């Protein structure tokens, strides 16, 4: 089983990571490893000669398992190095994931601003403004007119 060291420059959330294969003078990359007993392929522990340990690596690919891994931790014991890893499911299955058609809840470039967004924050005070109707129409405060009503008008 062989492990290839990488330096991952992308945030974990990226589907397609920007990874750079490491080269260390005098060392080969990939390196030979074995899977430690009683670990699974999602959160494996790989064992290798400590001579093959790349301390600058934070990411790797294991050919037999055909998976990419984040290197979470490194321990050393009796001439061996142990890489504690977690599978990067996004990078491993990125091509298959891209083929899926899904309902997108939130998106950076495709959205509808008229849907209520509970993630935005509002200030606790409001902006209050007034809009007047035209002042040259309607009732006129400067007019004071009398209206007189009588009955029994024989001249009507």
């Amino acid at each position: 089983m062989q492990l290839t060291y990488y330096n991952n420059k992308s945030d974990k959330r990226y589907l397609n990571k920007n990874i750079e294969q490491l080269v260390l003078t005098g060392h080969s990359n990939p390196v030979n490893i074995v899977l430690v007993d009683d670990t699974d392929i999602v959160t494996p522990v790989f064992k290798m000669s400590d001579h093959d340990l790349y301390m600058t690596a934070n990411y790797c690919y294991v050919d037999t398992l055909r998976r990419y891994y984040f290197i979470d931790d490194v321990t050393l014991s009796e001439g061996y190095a142990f890489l504690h890893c977690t599978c990067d499911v996004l990078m491993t299955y990125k091509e298959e994931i891209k083929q899926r058609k899904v309902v997108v809840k939130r998106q950076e470039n495709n959205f509808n601003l008229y849907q209520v967004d509970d993630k935005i924050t509002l200030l606790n005070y409001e902006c209050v403004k007034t809009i007047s109707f035209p002042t040259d129409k309607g009732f006129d405060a400067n007019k004071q007119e009398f209206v007189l009503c009588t009955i029994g008008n024989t001249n009507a």
Partner: protein
Amino acid sequence: MALIGNIRLNTGQNINIPDIEWGTAGIIGLNQNYWYYSNGNNPATQPYWGDVISKINAKGAIANYWGDVYNLFMDRSAHPASYWSEGAGKTWLDNVRAHTYFIFGSLDNGGTFICKDSGNKYYLMALRGTFNDDSTLGDDYAYWFQGVPGQSSDGLTASELQTAFFIQYDDINGSPKLWIFYTPNGLGWRNYDANAFPTSTYYGTTLDDCLSNPNWEEVLPAISLNGTIPENMFVCSDVTGETVYSSQGYKAIGSDGEGVYPQYSHRAGSILGGSRIDSSENPYNSTSTTSPTGDPWDDTSDKIPGTDEDQFTIDALNSGFYTLYNPDKTQIKAFNNYLFSDITDAMSQILKRLISNPIEYVVFCAMCHFTPPSSNTAHISFCGLDSGINANLISKQMHPIDCGSVDLFYIGKDGLKHDDTSSFLSYDPYYKIQIYLPYIGIKDLKTSDVMRGTLSVKYWVDLLTGACIAQLTVNRTSRGSHDVNLDSVIAEFTGNCYEHLPMSATDWRGMATSIMQFAGGAASVASGNAAGLGTMASAVMAEKVTVARSGQLAANYGYMGKQTPYLIISRAINQTPENFKEWEGLPSNITYGISELSGYTEIDPNTLWVNNIPGITEREADMIRSICNEGIIV
């Protein structure tokens, strides 16, 4: 693929210029004196051509927008004759392709774009656009850099273009002001406003020198097409946006052949370095857009002053019916004794007259703040008696009073009517609208009923009683799907617009009792705990207290009140940080193929079926759904 607008700084991003096309294929034309490029009709045949000629900037070129046609013009006389010889002109004419790529902005708002000639040379054009659809071009102009397309000595090679840097330069109000860019072949800074270098420069020995400058303001990040930015470079501007600062140690700004490669940019006090995202606008604050066809949303507030103390120049006392007294306690006791003491002969004459009191034939007398309609005059008569007093004769019982209308929209760049924020924040409960109606009071309106429409108010008054009804009409065009055109009365409210004048003591008592029944209108306050700052939208609105702004304003109260309707708008203010949509996304709820997307994405896990991927474990499938639900970057 047409791509117009700001590009996003992203390390490693490359843009293949030949693949970018601008709109439809352009028409290259040649007037006797002007080159033009247009994506529509020959501008020389358009009625505004005379204005174009008279206003083309002597520096080089001008651009305008007329009837969906974008036009760019270059003044032949502004360049040496050798550029414009018939042969050279035709070469350029034939060779300029309709390929432009906008680094910043767009043709209708101005910006910087790249175009290419058939000699595989690239040219940058800084374009300021304030397009309007009349024939007045104003002071819009554009300027070509790196020479003239078609001239073999001019232009940038592709490799040179890949290492150029561009900076969008905002003024202190955050509006795009200048389009400055720098190219490594020595053109230095360019400011399209003045086709000149920044007005002054400042050099510091180190980045800290400039950081400590109290005038240091902000500039958007630099952008390079190949994504690489040399270290230890930065650029910034002062608060006026007029002065540019740059780090020393590189070639000074100020003359051709020199340049500075900006790396750092300062945004709100933080230093951004390395790979970074171009800052994007707050998507919920769209009111900053301006329109070539209309006015932006008016975010000012009209003053609604209180009742003017001097407005009551004529009152009931002027009618002659009334005399008001102010007796002290001795005098009021004396008047009481007069009323209930022995009747004298003089008093009996008066009493006889009181039994046949003519006032019984006056139904009412009132005052109002409008002129009732009348077509002629007549003597005031009652009970068969002609008083001989001439007065206007009111001709109709029902009288309309039009209070006009208010627009609750702004015209966007697309020529359509838009609400205040073009988002959910323009509607209840984030946006509340109340209306004050004379003689009625303040009423709540449903924002959805009136937003984006024209609200009209018209009263109908029954002149026999003073009863009035205010009808609110909304005229609004449809948004498109799931919407309709509206032109309807959406609310009616009632009141009374007379100030009735009592004709007798009995009359007054009855009227006063009626009036006092309408007194008050105390504000009611619903209790609620105040939400803290930065609380999420729905939680904030749920805690808002509701206050009644007026009681019932019938009759005499309304006579003293405001006589013009007005709206009271209370709208929530959002506090959205920069780059919000890049880090959190915006509500979508749309079905997409993931390969169609880019950027931050949250996926409904119930719709992401991955268990059938060959070799995947159940645990990995769950992990994929969980991570995609929380948000990934495609």
